[in-house]
């Protein structure tokens, strides 16, 4: 599969051993950021809701995510009788795999000291993100279907419909940025924001992207696939232990990825004041700031209904995104 990717077109290619090292570093960093986000979400939700949030395990509840993972790991690997063997186990792995693979393209900095501070700078850049984003939904869909439960099934159907509706709006919302930057490569897009961050000229695109991002990550107010009031826990109803943990982890990784793409495309990526070694930190800070919005919205808004979600996607977001692309295209040509 790898040779098929036109790697030769990239701007900068690292040595293989550096690639391996980099992938390890990214993996470790993100894997340690996810628990922080988990904890931050619970703490912040607590504060939003007039309570403390976790504060028993470790100082300030800091070890709570570890305790959670420990608990999930020690659970029995249970499979309901109605579940489809094989698929039931593969589905969560697929979801988390897709999430991890998407991380590779997030740029945390330009080439520094002969090493690009990103996993890989693919020329198809943003398409790579969509490809693996779509793959992640196979995990949800298969998991929901293979569980053999009606609640899971309904949740899976919802997530499939949601994917189709919002993937388009999301793609179109980024097209404006691509037109302005003249490249699909995320590194090039960040570099094109030297003068002005794309959030200013592309504010409509940014808003559409964020809304679609909420839907893509199944977060409130679009958390229909796992709407607890209706479908118990949606596609993950029948999952327990670390299989559930994988879904859970993948969801938060997706949030980080959406935040990362949003900061790359609209908020100037790694750019920020200070020396260049601060770049990855700026990128992380921007990602976490957007993640905070995810949490904030979750604490505030009620949930959409299935059909309302659909009509919002098709009747509002997609026309708006298309208009945005057209206007951008005209302006880019005129200037």
């Amino acid at each position, binding site marked *: 599969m790898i040779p098929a990717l036109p790697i030769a077109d990239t701007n900068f290619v690292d040595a293989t051993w550096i690639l391996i090292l980099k992938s390890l570093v990214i993996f470790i960093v993100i894997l340690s950021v996810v628990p922080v986000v988990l904890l931050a979400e619970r703490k912040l939700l607590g504060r939003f809701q007039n309570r403390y949030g976790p504060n028993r395990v470790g100082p300030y509840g800091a070890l709570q995510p570890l305790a959670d993972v420990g608990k999930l790991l020690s659970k029995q690997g249970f499979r309901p009788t109605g579940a489809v063997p094989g698929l039931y186990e593969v589905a969560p792995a697929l979801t988390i795999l897709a999430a991890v693979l998407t991380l590779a393209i997030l740029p945390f900095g330009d080439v520094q000291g002969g090493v690009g501070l990103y996993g890989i700078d693919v020329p198809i850049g943003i398409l790579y993100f969509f490809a693996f984003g779509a793959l992640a939904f196979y995990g949800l869909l298969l998991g929901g279907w293979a569980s053999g439960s009606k609640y899971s099934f309904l949740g899976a159907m919802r997530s499939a419909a949601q994917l189709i509706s919002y993937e388009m709006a999301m793609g179109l919302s980024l097209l404006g940025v691509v037109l302005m930057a003249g490249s699909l490569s995320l590194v090039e897009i960040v570099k094109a924001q030297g003068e002005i961050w794309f959030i200013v000229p592309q504010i409509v695109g940014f808003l559409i992207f964020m809304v679609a991002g909420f839907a893509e990550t199944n977060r409130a107010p679009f958390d229909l696939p796992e709407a607890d009031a209706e479908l118990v826990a949606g596609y993950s109803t029948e999952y327990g232990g670390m299989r559930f943990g994988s879904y859970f982890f993948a969801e938060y990784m997706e949030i980080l990825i959406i935040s990362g793409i949003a900061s790359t495309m609209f908020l100037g990526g790694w750019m920020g004041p200070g020396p260049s070694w601060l770049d990855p930190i700026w990128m992380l800070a921007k990602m976490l700031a957007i993640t905070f919005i995810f949490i904030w919205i979750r604490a505030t808004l009620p*949930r959409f209904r299935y059909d309302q979600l659909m009509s919002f996607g098709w009747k509002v977001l997609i026309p708006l995104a298309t208009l945005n692309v057209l206007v951008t295209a005209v302006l880019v040509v005129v200037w």
Partner: protein
Amino acid sequence: MTLEPGGNGRGGQSAAEIVHEIEGSAPGVTVELEPEQELLMVNMGPHHPATHGVLRLEVELEGEVVRDLRPIVGYVHTGIEKSCESMAFWKVIPFVERMDYLSYFFNSEAYCGAVEKLIGLEVPRRAQYLRVLHMELNRLHSHLVWLGTTALDVGAMSVYFYCFRDRDRVLDMFEMSAGQRMHTRYFQVGGVAEDIPEGWEAKARELIDVIKRGLSQYESLLDRNEIFLMRTKNIGVVDRERLLELGVTGPLLRAAGDPWDLRKEAGYLVYDELDFDIPVGTVGDGYDRYRVRLAEMRESLKIIEQCLDGLPDGPWIADDRKYVLPPRSELSTSMESLIHHFKLVTEGFRVDPGEVYYPIESPRGELGCFVVADGSAKPVRVHFRDPSFVNLQSLRDMAIGEYVADLIQTLAMLDPILGGIDR
């Protein structure tokens, strides 16, 4: 491969494509069913996060649309009404409080009021005021729990916590006056068990401000929230006539535009001396139900304020030794008091043969208590007309033809308490 190898039959398919076709069908209209294999039977409950207790709904879904619905009750049936028949009249009170566990003051008022009516016992004015005070506080508490859980069911998670924060302040008041936060057994036949302690009034006035602040907070979170409007406007509409046919009362009926409130209609206790309005809705949809209940909470605050202002001095329990325990202090000085006390505690008071029905306005509608006495110290029959039970009948009319998500919202707006339904 079938969808559910271990399941009971019909697989459901094509959930995504059927969604838009039922928009015109009014609730209550029998919907023409497609061939049966299109339907997916889902058991919601008894263990389900949205059924507010152990209610089971057998729902037939066509995709996401509810085509048929059967509420199945009885999972928390505890035989309270039967147990009451083997208790002395005064020992029944804590039992009935546990039926509808969110409106315990109303339960005990319905029962105590019925017994008082049966024996013709006059309740002192201070006791009446105290009862009204506690019942209106209880209405606040009940509506706050309703608002929180309903908001949670439509996905607005934080409102739940805000409501419970304020609701606990209300329970603090109960703890102060009755010693218990829930199931207080504060109302007695003849009055209330104890006068309110010093400082209660000041704390109640403080609470009014707290709740007022809270209410404006919830309103700013939900009232004009676009998603909340989309989720509640024109959902679950049943017209006034149909609701009356089903015997639905309370906020549901008022939301449909019928200003029927027993506090005005029956004028029990001192309600006819108090100045308050009956909020009504116009459409009878989820949003009206929400608005009516929030407006009712403001009216309750008004009533509480008036009661605090006009709280008369005097005894808080009737001075009739045949039915009411003598004051504790008299027991060591008066032989007669001791005998009365002994008789009341061991045997209880006897009630002349007769039967009575005493309805009051609980947070959920008409809560009536029917008591039959045969001259002994125990009731022959105690029956409650619980509004949750009657109102639940209308769920089918409200939810058929709507989406699953609306079913959940409609059920939440019904505010059913399973303890009251099953008894």
